[in-house]
């Protein structure tokens, strides 16, 4: 019995290692591409040991450093998208969770359905509209347009968090005479703080990783990192070290966020499946 248990444990560890190899291996390999000497990039058989160097990073960040301002732009756009998203989605999620709303199911599904529109198809109309109001190339235009992705997702996620808060807590407060906004602000939201964090994390990552909207809506000075990686993908040759270095730069903030706030990730992703 014990041997059987040990066997299954070993199997589990092997499975875990396999999972790591498959999902983390390529990432490590790509990071290697950013620090290895250019000639070894396509060596066959692949060269696993090499002399690492930071030339690629120096090129993209310092001289000529095209990606350094893009890094800042990505930060501004992503944080802005999250900031703009919360005041809209949190009240909506609260309402959908706490109140009887007619057609709730349809409204919920409508939010989700918005995610089915192909973003590419919106680019030209957005471009024309945004240029006509004079917002072309501004951070605000990208932050605004990104709400089409962040709000639906946030509403769903936040609603499932708020669903989990026992209504007794709110009832007690209401009985004490608290108005609805006091209840929401002082009772419910502090409890779903982890939910807000997770929602913001995902909104941040979606905004950070989005390439379609900045492709058309940004100017040279407001371009974000994904656009920067495309820039190295020229017709006259692909400079792989630079792409990898820019890509690593683009990968780091979301990765850091998810690793630092890891404990909220699992809590966040139940989508209200089972009442805890």
């Amino acid at each position: 019995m014990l041997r059987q248990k040990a066997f299954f444990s070993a199997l589990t560890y092997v499975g875990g290692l396999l999972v790591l190899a498959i999902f983390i291996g390529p990432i490590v390999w790509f990071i290697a591409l950013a620090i290895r000497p250019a000639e070894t990039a396509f060596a066959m058989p692949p060269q696993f040991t090499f002399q690492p160097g930071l030339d690629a990073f120096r090129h993209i960040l310092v001289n000529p450093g095209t990606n350094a301002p893009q890094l800042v732009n990505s930060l501004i756009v992503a944080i802005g998208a999250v900031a703009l998203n919360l005041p809209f989605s949190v009240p909506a999620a609260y309402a959908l969770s706490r109140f009887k709303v007619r057609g709730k199911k349809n409204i919920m599904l409508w939010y989700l359905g918005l995610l089915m529109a192909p973003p590419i198809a919106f680019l030209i109309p957005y471009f024309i509209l945004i240029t006509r109001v004079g917002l072309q190339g501004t951070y605000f235009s990208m932050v605004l347009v990104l709400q089409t992705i962040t709000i639906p997702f946030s509403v769903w996620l936040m609603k499932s968090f708020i669903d989990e808060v026992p209504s007794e807590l709110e009832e007690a407060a209401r009985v004490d005479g608290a108005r609805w906004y006091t209840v929401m602000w002082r009772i419910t939201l502090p409890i779903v703080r982890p939910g807000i964090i997770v929602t913001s994390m995902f909104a941040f990552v979606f905004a950070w990783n989005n390439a379609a909207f900045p492709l058309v809506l940004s100017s040279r000075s407001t371009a974000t990192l994904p656009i920067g990686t495309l820039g190295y993908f020229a017709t006259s040759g692909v400079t792989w070290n630079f792409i990898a270095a820019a890509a690593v730069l683009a990968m780091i903030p979301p990765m850091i966020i998810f690793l630092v706030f890891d404990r909220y990730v699992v809590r966040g992703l139940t989508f209200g499946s089972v009442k805890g």
Partner: protein
Amino acid sequence: MSVQTVLAPQAEKPVRPSFVRRYLPYLLIAPSVIMLLSLIAYPLLFALRSSLYFWNLQIAPQPLTFVGLANYVQALNAFDFRDALVNTLVLSVTGTAIEFAFGLAIALLLLKALPGMNVVRALLILPTTIAPIVVGFLFRYLYDPGGGLITWLLRVFGAPVPPMGLLGSPTTALAAVLFADVWQWTPFFAIVLYASLLSVPDEIIEAARLDRASPLTMLIRIKLPLIRRTAVIIAMLRFMQLFNTFDTVLVLTRGGPGTSTRTLGYSLYEQGLINFNIGLVSAMTWITVLIVNIIVALYVSFAFRNEEW
């Protein structure tokens, strides 16, 4: 105070609720709805109007003539429409199914609360945090017929690699694109399903175990039904995202070789940002939106029919 609460009658408020109080939930929902409507409605209406005109920026800067449904006819008869539709459906359906299956398998693996497995889980989310465009570059590098890691691994294991590379052969290109997406999003399924399975109350599991349920029965008859709602939602989300992908295809294959990896999303990109045929791309947008709508509506009516909200 508690005495008061007990003695006070459970009656409705003597004063008629204010407008705000009565419509409060709708007022709270309204801002997001208005924001989204304006952000989505404008382009869709713009596309609807443009789709009825001949407007090709390569020919003239403004719309030229009213052509009614001609753009729609042209879009449906386009040489690549059928291929693009088939590829898109294959990618979306197979991708979602594979990601779900593998995600579930990994989730079950993670549920074995052995020490160290939480490291695996923490790291597992990383592929999903990468921008799809970057994933495209990553896999282009891995698939390189000259020095790509995957090419090398396949050869080491004796699997046949077409001489023009996995991305260069019409038979393997779509699978290669699919694999890149599976690599990126299986962790998402894994972690969501893991989180949901985790919140299945222990009492139910205990009761099932007492009833001598086998692990397989436990999985199929007990756990899966309980996480049904989450599973259905994320499957739908992923399907819609997959249906619309274009940036990975753009970087990996540009829709080639031939039409083997051309997707509806890529066709939209090509007609809009390369050919600048605004009328045609607007018609294609509406066709795509309608198709996805139909599929999702069918899916929703089937999957959500018994759901409580």
